[in-house]
């Protein structure tokens, strides 16, 4: 086999030419045992891919282990307190629970957790990704390791990469890490990008940012904008939440 022969076989394997076209090439170029040669190139290509998949899986496994170790080391070791402290703590909890039930309008977790939207992230496919840095950052996002996705996406922005994908996932990561003001700036960037595929999700996350910042008028303004778009994917939820906020 020469350079061109392998190239033609690869073109056939990748579906760029038909078997008839490859056979015609083989005939004119005296390429014998075509089936065997195709099988060899295919196997070699799969072996290369398998090695890439192996590296990919290894990365996933070590990341998962890192996350689980981080979770374990972050665990608080409990000490058994004396009974009188338990008594005081229990009374304090009852008072606090009462406060939250009766005066907890500004408590985001209590009031609006049901409306929270956690984006699952894009399916990250290394072989289809031109940009390793983005692939890497979104892998962390997909694993809900938002601290690292913030670090990586911010670094990309600092280096001049400024796309609606980066803004959206950075904004979402910041929101999930309880930094609503910084998240707002990123999500606003998405709205400023004409026909971004992230617009609707960004609009909804902006509602969540406003609520987390106790900015009810801001939340209502974003909600009104969504309610006015009847085909918006968050239309139903927005209508329901706006009604709830207006009743309070």
């Amino acid at each position: 086999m020469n350079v061109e022969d392998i190239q033609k076989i690869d073109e056939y394997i990748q579906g760029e030419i038909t078997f008839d076209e490859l056979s015609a090439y083989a005939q004119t170029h005296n390429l014998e045992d075509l089936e065997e040669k195709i099988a060899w190139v295919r196997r070699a290509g799969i072996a290369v891919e398998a090695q890439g998949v192996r590296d990919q899986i290894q990365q996933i496994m070590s990341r998962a282990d890192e996350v689980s170790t981080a979770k374990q080391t972050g665990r608080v070791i409990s000490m058994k307190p004396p009974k009188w402290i338990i008594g005081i703590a229990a009374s304090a909890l009852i008072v606090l629970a009462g406060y939250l039930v009766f005066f907890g309008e500004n408590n985001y977790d209590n009031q609006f957790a049901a409306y929270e939207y956690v984006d699952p992230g894009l399916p990250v496919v290394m072989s289809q990704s031109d940009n390793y840095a983005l692939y890497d950052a979104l892998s962390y996002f997909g694993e809900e390791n938002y601290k690292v996705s913030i670090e990586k996406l911010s670094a990309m922005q600092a280096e001049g990469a400024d796309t609606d994908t980066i803004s959206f996932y950075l904004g979402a990561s910041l929101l999930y890490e309880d930094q609503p003001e910084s998240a707002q700036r990123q999500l606003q960037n998405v709205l400023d990008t004409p026909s971004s595929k992230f617009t609707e999700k960004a609009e909804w996350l902006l509602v969540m940012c406003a609520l987390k910042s106790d900015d009810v008028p801001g939340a209502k303004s974003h909600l009104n904008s969504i309610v006015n778009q009847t085909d918006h994917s968050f239309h139903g939820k927005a209508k329901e939440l706006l009604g709830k906020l207006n009743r309070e």
Partner: protein
Amino acid sequence: MTDQEIYAGILRKDNAAFTYLYNEYRRMILSMVQKNSGSEDDAMDIFQEGLVAMWTNITQGKFELKENTRLSTYLYSLCRNIWISRLRKVKPGMTIEIKDEHSDLMDVDDQEEQYTLIRTLEKQLLKLNEACQQLLKQFYYEKSSLKDIALSMNITEKTAKNNKYRCMQSLRSYYENRTDDER
């Protein structure tokens, strides 16, 4: 994730599918290996092998998802076979009986054979120089065009094409001249 979604994700080499499989079935494989004279490291190694074998067989069309098949059973059966092969190498001639928690098993002997062939080739790849490994990875794994590879390596497209040919020839030569231990 449903089995169909995982299957499609594996075909796309999607991180989410592999992450899901790792999180869901890690314990199952760990338990099988540990109950059959293996350590945690052995189990993780076997799990990784099983996942690569699963990708290899799905990609080659050797395994298709049917109504009565479950991906977890398939993955378990692959890992189990790989672990048996490994035990046989360590203890040749000994009868190996695996203690299973799962009665649901699939016959994957043929598929393991196919995978072993790919694995042997994969080992030969490591003998290539780094530039060759990188070029082949970009072309076959990342599906980059020769034009893009040439750009990233600061060479002409023609040189990239010639280099790819030479790398493939070297790989073939290493494969054909591999030692018995590498078979």
